[in-house]
């Protein structure tokens, strides 16, 4: 499946949650499949911290690496592009085609750097809403994503309850925990400590790659689990038979982190990393409400929430908190904690179980959209048990109630 990244630029100012404005706003996005005649088959996929608009397929025939969720998105896959019109856009604040700190500020003619405004998940969703409007889509069949992508999916259901029919939320939370903030702050400190960072003013010069690589290494640790590291690396040495008693990359796990840290610096902007981790830290849907349930009172979308047993970055308890708050509002929310050793990465790796669940969930939505559920009948019309089996108690009680009602009615008449 060959796909091309497109860009759309909005000239109007985006008013941000912080009070600042951003203008113009460019979004990079990709679409897959075809929007149907009644424009009811659109699914928005939201990416996580380091993702981009390239969710599936290849950019050219020679492209070796498919999109970041190619296992789940494509013809015949869970998010079946033969059935659905799938959209994925790069978040604002990012560095893969959408407006972010590395974009040129039109008022100065230079990259924003740290003058770029801090954006929130709600701001990211607002920009996506502009894109959905521009694509002429009245309401989304589903919004889905893992991690920060899941936050956007929940935010969509809160911000635009009439425009989202369902949300599939993977390995995510409705409010970022202290642990996650801590695990974002340490990588930020690594970037601040790199002299090349220069308070974000490094465009056109040597970027803070050392700091960004350490930041990514920390990230990778949080995406794995103790069990998956034991399984994947154990204490194995990389390219050597015995310990060197020196400060070199000796263990496989060190080599893995170093490789991924360095590779990340070739595709990601350090300032974008700072901004997007900040976006995650600020995410708390309960802000300004007595509790999370009241913050979710507007939600109309049906939810499918998945968590992964070994995910310690967004542990199952946080997904359960979301599900409980949804259920308190009477929202149709399904929840599964998937047993997996892959840690937070499971949402990208456990595609089989996710695929099955998402496929069946979307199929149910389509059925229910086609044939709305009948309203419940008035109480008292329930079919009684089969006469053969009914113990006299029930019929006796019914007769007694009838008699009482009769007496009550007569009393009213005489009164």
């Amino acid at each position, binding site marked *: 499946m060959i796909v091309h990244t497109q860009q759309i630029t909005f000239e109007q100012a985006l008013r941000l949650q912080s009070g600042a404005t951003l203008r113009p706003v460019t979004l990079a996005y990709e679409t897959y499949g075809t929007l149907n005649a009644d424009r009811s088959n659109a699914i928005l996929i939201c990416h996580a911290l380091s993702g981009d608009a390239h969710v599936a397929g290849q950019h050219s025939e020679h492209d070796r690496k498919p999109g970041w969720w190619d296992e789940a998105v494509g013809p015949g896959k869970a998010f079946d592009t033969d059935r659905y019109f799938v959209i994925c856009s790069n978040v604002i604040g990012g560095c893969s085609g959408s407006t972010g700190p590395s974009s040129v500020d039109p008022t100065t003619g230079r990259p924003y750097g740290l003058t770029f405004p801090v954006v929130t998940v709600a701001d990211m969703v607002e920009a996506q809403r502009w894109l959905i409007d521009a694509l002429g889509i009245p309401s989304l069949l589903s919004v889905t994503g893992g991690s920060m992508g899941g936050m956007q999916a929940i935010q969509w259901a809160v911000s635009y309850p009439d425009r989202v029919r369902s949300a599939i939320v993977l390995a995510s939370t409705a409010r970022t925990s202290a642990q996650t903030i801590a695990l974002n702050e340490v990588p930020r400190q690594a970037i601040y400590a790199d002299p090349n960072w220069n308070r974000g003013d490094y465009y056109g010069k040597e970027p803070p790659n050392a700091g960004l690589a350490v930041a990514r290494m920390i990230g990778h640790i949080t995406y794995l689990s103790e069990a998956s590291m034991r399984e994947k690396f154990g204490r194995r040495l990389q390219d050597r038979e015995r310990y060197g008693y020196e400060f070199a990359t000796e263990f496989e796990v060190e080599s893995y982190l170093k490789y991924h840290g360095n590779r990340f610096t070739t595709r990601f902007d350090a300032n974008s990393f700072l901004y997007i981790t900040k976006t995650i830290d600020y995410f708390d849907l309960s802000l300004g409400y007595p509790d999370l349930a009241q913050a979710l009172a507007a939600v109309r979308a*049906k939810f*499918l929430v998945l968590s992964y047993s070994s995910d310690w970055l967004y542990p199952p308890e946080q997904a*359960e908190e979301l*599900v*409980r708050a949804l*259920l*308190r*509002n*009477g929202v*149709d*929310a*399904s*929840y*599964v*904690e*998937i*047993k997996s050793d892959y840690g937070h990465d499971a949402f990208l790796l456990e595609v089989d*179980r996710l695929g*099955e*669940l998402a496929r*069946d*969930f979307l*199929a*149910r939505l389509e*059925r229910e959209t086609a044939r709305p*559920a*009948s*309203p*419940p*009948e008035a*109480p008292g*019309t*329930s*079919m*009684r*048990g*089969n006469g*053969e*089996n*009914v*113990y*006299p*108690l*029930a019929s006796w*009680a019914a007769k007694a109630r009838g008699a009482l009602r009769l007496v009550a009615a007569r009393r009213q008449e005489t009164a």
Partner: protein
Amino acid sequence: MTPSRPDLDVIVRMVAKGARVLDLGCGDGTLLAELNGANGVQGRGVEVDEAKVRACLSKGLSVRHGNIEDGLADFPDGMFDVVILSQTLAYLNRPLQVMREMARVGRSAIISFENAGHWRARRQAVRGDGSGTPLVSGLPRVRAITLEQFHETLAQLKLRAEERVLLPGWRWAEAWPTLWTEVAVYRVTQA
């Protein structure tokens, strides 16, 4: 419907068309799917086993993965027309708490259980051969429940039996139900 669960047919007949139903310990969703098909019910479930939850979702059901005893607290008062607890009561650690919560979130509750007063269960208990093993499911349970104990519990919780079906449902067995009933199905409401 599996032959080992004769109560499910009875439960399906007890649920009104289009009712909002919550099935506690819904397993692989057999009952909910039956209700959805036969009665046009809007069913939800709670189930503790991941594979069974996934089986439910593959049937197009809406199910929450979790423990019945923790899970009920999240539903608002009167959210459901019917809350079902089929052959699960004997396995709960806090059955009274669950029954109280069922009466809160549902306008009525359907509870089925194996009658430990059945003559065969009594004989097993006396002989000591598998007294803890229920007649039908064969699973180890936390407690044995007889019809009498269930009636006492209903009275204690101020619940009223609106309807009751005793299985296997021989007419003559009604003369001495506690000895002849294998599975009892009750529909109860707040008194």
